[in-house]
């Protein structure tokens, strides 16, 4: 458990995850109030990573449920292993005839079988899925429900029930109550608006692309050995590119990939041609790359102008704002 907001930030940082104060506060609150966190934000800002780091910091296991269209109860909660049940009945045929052996009528035989049907609906044939595992887990755990926006509305409603009580009723076994209330993190890319009921039960955290200094700190932490100047140039350019109207904006992981790639190429300072050639690391659409190249050209001209006349540069820098 965390002692304070600062403790959260410090512990996360020791696990190589740099957080803002907002994130730290929300995480601290969630652990104190035992509430789920709903994390929203563009792809690649470290939403999933947050849950992983949280699990590490708390020393808990991470149980992950990846949502997708068509995910349903059997896939998320539990499933009976039909095949195994059928197989067992076959193998145990003799035993079963023994049980019903002395039965005189059909009804009696069925009755006898009925007294034994517990055998077939026991833990042995139950296939626990992530949600059930989180609930029955002997140790406290962090439950990550990833990309909840991809799931259907029905599944969301079903999830509500679990999140409010942390208990599940399996008709054949009875109600299973969580021994430890798991720490739940839900992530969403906002492909679909979540229901109000779900939002009400969660603490909401919106993570956006980080600010320049923040991102610089992340790059320096995650790409050890990177040049101070190179890191700063990479981050500046990424921040500029994010302001463009692109199909897909470069995420933090792409910034890191780029920084690593440049490090691998043994580069110490980002020049124009090199940036142009390696843009494909951060941008994944042809049209985006073309746009970024144009932007890069403008940027270089701007810098040249700056070098020539510092006064004129400040006048053109307003152009930044327009992007």
């Amino acid at each position, binding site marked *: 458990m965390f002692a304070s907001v600062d403790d959260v930030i410090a512990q996360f940082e020791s696990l190589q995850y740099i957080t803002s*104060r*907002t994130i730290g506060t*929300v995480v601290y*609150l969630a652990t104190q109030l035992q509430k789920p966190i709903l994390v929203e934000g563009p792809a690649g800002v470290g939403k999933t990573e947050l849950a992983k780091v949280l699990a590490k910091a708390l020393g808990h296991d991470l149980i992950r449920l990846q949502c997708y269209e068509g995910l349903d109860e059997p896939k998320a909660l539990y499933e009976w292993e039909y095949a195994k049940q059928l197989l067992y009945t076959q193998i145990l045929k003799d035993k079963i005839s023994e049980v019903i052996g002395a039965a005189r009528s059909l009804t009696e035989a069925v009755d006898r079988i009925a007294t034994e049907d517990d055998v077939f609906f026991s833990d042995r044939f139950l296939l626990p899925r992530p949600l059930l595992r989180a609930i029955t887990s002997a140790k406290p755990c962090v439950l990550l429900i990833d990309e909840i926006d991809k799931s259907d509305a029905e599944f969301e409603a079903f999830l509500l029930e679990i999140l409010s009580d942390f208990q599940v009723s399996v008709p054949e076994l009875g109600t299973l109550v969580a021994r430890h209330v798991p720490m739940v993190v839900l992530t969403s890319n906002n492909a*679909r608006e979540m229901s*109000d009921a779900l*939002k*009400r039960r969660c*603490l*909401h955290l919106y993570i956006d692309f980080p600010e320049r200094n923040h991102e610089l700190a992340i790059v320096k932490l995650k790409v050890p050995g990177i040049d101070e100047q190179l890191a700063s140039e990479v981050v500046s350019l990424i921040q500029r590119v994010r302001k463009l109207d692109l199909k897909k904006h470069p995420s933090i992981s792409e910034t890191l990939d780029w920084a690593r790639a440049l490090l691998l190429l043994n580069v110490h300072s980002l020049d124009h041609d090199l940036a142009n050639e390696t843009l494909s690391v951060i941008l994944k659409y042809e049209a985006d790359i073309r746009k970024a190249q144009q932007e890069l050209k403008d940027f270089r001209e701007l810098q040249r102008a700056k070098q020539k006349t510092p006064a004129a540069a400040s006048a053109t820098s307003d152009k930044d704002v327009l992007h």
Partner: protein
Amino acid sequence: MNEKIVEFCGLLRQNGLRVSVSESMDAMRGLGVAGLAERETVRAVLRATTVKRAVDVPTFERLFDLYFTGMGEVIKEITDGTRAALDLDPAAFQRLLDDLERFLREQGIELSPLAQALLRADAGQLERLLREAAARGQLGDIQHGLQEGKFTHALATALGLGALTGEIEGLKGMLGGLDPETGKRFGAFLDRRLQDLAEMLKSAVRQELDRQDVDRRDRQGIQALAEKSFFYLTEDEMRRMQEAVNKLAQRLKNVVTIRRKRARRGRFDSSRTLRSNLQFGGVPFRMFFDRKRKDKPQVVILCDVSDSVRNVSRFMLQFVYALQDLYSKVRSFIFVADVGEVTKLFTEHEANTALDTALTGNVINVYAHSDFGRAFRTFHREHLAAVNSRTTVIVLGDARNNYNLPHEWVLKDVQLRAKQVIWLNPENRMTWGFGDSEMDRYAPYCTIVEECRNLNQLYRVIDRLVAV
């Protein structure tokens, strides 16, 4: 503090955020845990507990600043203004305050809480009193700039300005006993403070007005936009409408994929499994699941881009563009008097370039007089193969035919081949069939005929489309 949070939640609600009671309770509990010491922490706690949509974050930030700094800042500013006007540095100002307090104590004068707060420059206490007065004076009911005077008056009454003026005047009368120098200083200070309070009242009312106003206009704007006919949009509205259409398409995409996936999903089919495995003596070697349904929707879109629907066709095409992204088998055509296929254009270029190319006459002559009959006949001759029993044909157009032959038999023929024919008309239903509108002739051969003049109608149509 709890009261303040409840009030703040009320404020959020007024500005269109949905904050439930349990959420405001969370906010209180959260603040209890995280503490009130730091402004940023308080902000983070309130944001995490009360704001649940990313789009509401900017509104929240604005309101938070307004509410939690607003009055305190203003009071401080006004007090600083007084200090500057009296030409004192902070230390001298503090000495003045102390002197005045000593004087009051010596004279054995008991002041009202308001006068005390005012003369001690106790910003916190002043803010609290103002807030209470605002609640009593029902300041929250203010709706309009013209009511400023009225509500300032109400606030002054609730605060007890009359009594305070009396108190201060009385004090001034007693200053005669002091040496003239000190008396003058105190007098000037008292006068200033009285003015300050009036100033604070005014700012409080103005702030309340701002607070009520934040977003109200915005929200009304968006509402109105959804109902406004495509024909009468200004340029700025066009731009916002594009965003709306894009969002709509995105939403449609989600709904469609989810619905389609659900139909495709198979459940374990126990009876079939048992039956089929009888040949192995009941040992389940083969598992069976419900059969997946194969139904890939095919869409053919005919979009009118003539002059009479100029404004509309851009949105319609944008919608078409989005649809093409959505379904794998979409063929898009535009027509005026000729028909041209734009499917390839749309797949290869990004939205704006594609739309511009389509609308500026690079595909077909867009400046001709529209002739639905001829366009349909051409379509029938050249592209009928695109229509089969699984195709949904969507026609977007106003059916204004310039008194040419309508050739409705084409539509009849198309309907016979297609799964369904949908006609979306951007004109008011009342005007269909009048003048050169041939809607009445075409309508019998369409499965669905809908008026589609604004965003809300388009949304309804889409909902129906997705359902079938």
